[in-house]
């Protein structure tokens, strides 16, 4: 488990990470979500003891990462798939990692098979595609069979097949009881992968809740309705006092806010309006996120 407490990083006058608090619990995929430059990578580097926090702390199993003995057995991390020496082979890269933590050599073969690089194990990394490098990075993270995994933007630049592979892998690792933290700026991807979301913007914590809870709270839902007689429907909605907007170019459909499909259905039945269409429209995670970060920016502008 990872615990981040009041974690702060300043570079001169710039605050990259601003008093973050969150936990990464075992048995689920936690999405670490935020636009580019929100401080996600800096946070992960501080968790791994690579960057020193200006204030606060990040603990792994209750201890700072730097105090862990054989840390690769505790935490597997993929920070940057390009941070490998192209002159080494995939097996050579994993060999020094294994040696550094006294991991058995058979783990090298196991993870190479697990990520599907068995056939490319003795090829130099400089000839690898981005997808292969990502797979090698995942292999390195899994090498010590750690209960905690940290992956920074693992689907960046992957093809759809690679993205699906990562998603299935991460869900599988969480199902085995591991704590998985995945950073991403791709909301749609996180909606499919993560059980829990930690959302940051400009280094600040914006939300820390389940993916469903995030949508329920920040995603606006609305009821879309279309009737046989559009004029009658328009009169009905105007008379009901609910907030409603016609949908452009939809043949007379309306979107009604702050109500439920049951209420609209009952209202239409009472007034004898026959409906063609009645459905609940949910914001996507992406729309919810955009609205939320827009609010955060506004808040900051007002506060300043």
């Amino acid at each position: 488990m990872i615990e981040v407490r009041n974690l702060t990083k300043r570079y001169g006058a710039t605050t990259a990470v601003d008093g973050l608090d969150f936990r990464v619990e075992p048995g689920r995929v936690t999405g670490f979500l935020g636009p580019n430059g929100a401080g996600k990578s800096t946070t992960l580097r501080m968790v791994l003891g690579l960057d020193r926090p200006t204030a606060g702390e990040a603990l792994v199993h209750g201890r700072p990462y730097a105090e862990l003995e054989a840390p690769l057995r505790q935490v597997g991390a993929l920070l940057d798939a390009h941070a490998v020496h192209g002159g080494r082979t995939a097996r050579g890269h994993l060999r020094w990692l294994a040696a550094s933590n006294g991991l058995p050599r058979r783990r090298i073969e196991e993870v190479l098979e697990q990520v599907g690089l068995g056939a490319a194990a003795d090829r130099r990394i400089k000839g690898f595609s981005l997808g292969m490098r990502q797979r090698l990075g995942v292999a390195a993270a899994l090498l010590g069979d750690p209960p905690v995994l940290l992956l920074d933007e693992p689907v960046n630049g992957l093809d759809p097949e690679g993205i699906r592979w990562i998603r299935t892998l991460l869900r599988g690792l969480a199902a085995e009881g591991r704590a998985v933290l995945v950073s991403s700026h791709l909301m749609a991807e996180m909606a499919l992968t993560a059980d829990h979301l930690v959302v940051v913007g400009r280094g600040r914590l914006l939300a820390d809740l389940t993916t469903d809870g995030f949508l329920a709270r920040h995603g606006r839902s609305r009821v879309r309705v279309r009737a046989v007689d559009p004029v009658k429907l328009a009169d009905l909605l105007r008379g009901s006092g609910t907030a409603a907007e016609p949908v452009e170019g939809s043949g007379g459909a309306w979107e009604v806010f702050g109500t439920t499909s049951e209420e609209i259905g009952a209202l239409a039945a009472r007034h004898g309006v026959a409906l063609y269409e009645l459905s609940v429209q949910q914001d996507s995670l992406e729309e919810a996120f955009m609205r939320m970060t827009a609010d955060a920016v506004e808040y900051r502008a007002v506060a300043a």
Partner: protein
Amino acid sequence: MTTSLALRAEWAKFTTLRSQWITPLIAVLLTAGITAAVQAAYGEVDRSLRDDPAEGIYYGMLFGHVAVVASGILLIGQEYASDTVRASLAAVPRRGRFYAGKLMLGTGIGLVVGLLSVAGAHLATSATVGLDLGQPGAVRSIVAGVLYHPLLLVLCLGLTAMLRNLTAAIGLLTPAVFLGTTFLTAVPGVREAAYFLPDRAGLYATRYLTDPAVPYGHWTGLLVMALWAAAAAWGGLLSLQRNDA
């Protein structure tokens, strides 16, 4: 226990990357090969190679140095160039331990290169112009010649750790080590100070004869070089501990 793991990781890095292990090999070949060629061609006729036998024996080392310096730079500079330093520090988060692994490997490589280079240079001399190890200074010259290599390698490793940049290290260290001394020696006034530069002090320890202009003894020369290497190694550690990776 875990420092030995850090050393094993460094050894694995060294053996899995061709540029890492080929550079020390080149150092040995250059030192022994050029000494052999020069002794065979000019050893009998050129008095400057004979008056102090060390001049002839270590002639090739002036070229072998290049590869020793490069080896020290590459050992840690490649980590910065490829960004693997982050993976290294995630695997061995105690920076002193990581750095100790580098220094131990660097010292070991330097000793092996020193032993092979000095042995090769002496064999080449013995096979061409002949060698008298009973001469005063001969044994000291061998010991100093061997130790010169790990000291130079650690010096460059430490300075590269301070710079944290492979390109900067190559750009600054190579000319500093090979031209700096020559250049400074030519400038009146700083000439005395130039005697205390690491390569100059270390090389003096390998000479059979005493140079009255040098303000210290042979062994002191090696000590001067060792102090430089220790200072660079210490500076590298501070840089590693103070900076974000």
